[in-house]
């Protein structure tokens, strides 16, 4: 590549100008505050981790990790999510803390550079992990909190699709016992959302017709609690029935939370099988082509950090939410204080007093009395003034113009 021009930055990283930052901070504050009210405490971990520990344990595929070498040749990753770092902390610094642990975070996470627009190399995630509780209550709490967080972020219209890796695993084991290669092929199609490929494979497998119809019918099986009842009729496999039992109980809890209108059960919704061990879910917002949150149960991760424990959690894709939330927080009024050399002490003391009250105050030494006069005139006429590119709602003038009038 030729030498970058002065204004360029690497592909996939972004600058955030003041108006975007105030919006982003607004979302971050409301969401973290929402999580705090659910008893989740915020945690921070370093941007850099070892590839061999957190890098390998994370759900991100190897080629998507952002890798670096340190001066000794050890491979370092920029964290690709917060789940694996939190698992590391839970297994070490928090080792003595009893379960369940409720932790929240807001952090930027990283991916290897990709050329396509919309695939950021650095983006924000806001999320929680609930460690040490395997119950359907815990999974439902996570989904209910995801819904509350989306609402706190200002996302108005959204849906959550929930699945369970145990059901598809059980159903495949029942219909294709011991035929692992074929099971993998079918799972691969579901993971890649390739329904055509899934049906084609089913079409050529040596399989009982009733099973074939059933496996194909799965593609249309989605909706509310009735899906669980229908699924129970489909499979006698113990794993599958346990998964459905778990989902039904979760549904009852979500019902009690009063949020089931946002939730849809879709048994083909499966996350990465090597990582997720139970329920998985994704959230979708109207007007945005990509999911706004995702999460699930990952009961095998903590063991990799020496403290085996069930765990569940989710992450909001905060950078994307920024695109769907249109309401800009109202910019707070600013006060302009203009002074001369002689009145500097008085003016700056007044500025400090106002700032202590929580007001935003900008101080400027006046270039000449005419300018102070113009500002005063403008302020008396309209109430708002523009000065050197910024707008102010309040004005105080010290020691200038006719009698140094001030408001």
């Amino acid at each position, binding site marked *: 590549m030729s030498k970058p021009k002065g204004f360029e930055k690497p592909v996939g990283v972004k600058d955030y100008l003041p108006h975007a930052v105030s919006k982003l901070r607004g979302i971050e504050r409301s969401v973290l505050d929402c999580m705090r009210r659910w008893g989740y405490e915020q945690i921070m971990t370093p941007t850099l981790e070892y590839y061999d520990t957190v890098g390998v344990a994370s759900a991100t595929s190897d080629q998507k990790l952002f890798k670096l070498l340190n001066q000794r040749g050890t491979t370092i990753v920029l964290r690709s999510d917060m789940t694996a770092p939190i698992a590391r902390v839970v297994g070490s610094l928090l080792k003595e803390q009893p379960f369940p642990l409720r932790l929240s975070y807001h952090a930027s996470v990283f991916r290897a550079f990709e050329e396509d627009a919309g695939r950021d190399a650095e983006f924000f995630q806001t999320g929680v992990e609930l460690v040490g509780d395997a119950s359907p209550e815990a999974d439902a709490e996570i989904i209910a909190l995801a819904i509350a967080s989306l609402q706190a972020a200002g996302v108005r*219209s959204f*849906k959550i699709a929930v699945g369970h890796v145990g059901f598809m695993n059980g159903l495949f084991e029942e219909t294709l016992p011991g035929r692992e290669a074929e099971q993998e092929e079918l799972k691969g199609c579901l993971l890649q*959302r390739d*329904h*055509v490929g899934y049906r084609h494979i089913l079409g050529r497998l040596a399989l009982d017709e009733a099973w074939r119809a059933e496996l194909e019918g799965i593609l249309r099986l*989605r909706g509310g609690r009735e899906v669980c009842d229908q699924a129970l009729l489909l499979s006698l496999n113990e794993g599958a029935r346990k998964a459905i039992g778990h989902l039904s109980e979760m549904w009852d809890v979500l019902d009690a939370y009063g949020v089931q209108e946002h939730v849809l059960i879709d048994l083909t919704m499966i996350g990465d099988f090597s990582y997720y061990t139970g329920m998985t879910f994704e959230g979708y917002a*109207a007007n945005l*082509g990509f999911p706004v949150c995702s999460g699930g149960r990952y009961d095998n991760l903590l063991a990799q950090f020496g403290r085996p424990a069930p765990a569940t959690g989710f992450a909001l894709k905060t950078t994307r939410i920024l695109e769907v939330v249109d309401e800009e927080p109202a910019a707070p009024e600013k006060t302009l204080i203009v002074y001369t050399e002689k009145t500097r002490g008085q003016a700056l003391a007044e500025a400090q007093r106002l700032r202590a009250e929580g007001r935003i105050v900008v101080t400027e030494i006046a270039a000449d009395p005419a300018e102070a006069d113009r500002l005063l005139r403008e302020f008396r006429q309209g109430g708002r003034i523009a000065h050197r590119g910024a707008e102010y709602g309040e004005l105080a003038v010290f020691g200038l113009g006719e009698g140094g009038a001030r408001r």
Partner: protein
Amino acid sequence: MTDGGGILKVAMPKGRIYKQASKLFREAGLPIPDDFDDSRRLIVPVPEAGMEFIMAKPVDVPTYVEYGVADLGVVGKDVMMEEAKDVYELLDLGIARCRMSVIGLPDWKPVIHPRVATKYPRVASQYFREHGQQVEVIKLNGSIELAPLIGLADRIVDMVETGQTLRENGLVEMKEMFQVTSRLIANRVSYRMKNEAIQSLCDRLSAVIPAQGGG
């Protein structure tokens, strides 16, 4: 995916596939004229069907759908394989049937530095890698058949419909890689947020898909 009050936005490929695709949609009871193709309009609303059609270059269809500016799209499997976008592949429409093949001169023998010319570099490299061959892939944008004739590459990977062009140029189909038909694809979010409308469209299309298409 602008909300548009439940309007389904469908990205349609301009050119070869459009006639067949629009015929299929009409058979499914969706009143779509067959001559958008000739007009220069890029966005064609069909309010009576609750749909809007976006006329796109075929290779761009998966991109529109992945980013959600179109809820659905009609696109060849060849493009799907090459573009590798994260979208739902819902239906095999069974139209625009052809195949992706490895093609060469009839007297082809293994060469020291094998070179393959193609419009589908990702598909070609993946195929040869899976078959234990390391080849150099040269991306061309058209008239792929020229490459072996003038010595740019010893083989090509391209779509074959009837084989007429190949025969006329003295080339042979060495190996069929996979069958290609057009697919109905959906955006990940639209698939959930507009599920009923999409499912009902799928059902109507399934009913009229040519039998051998195997939805």
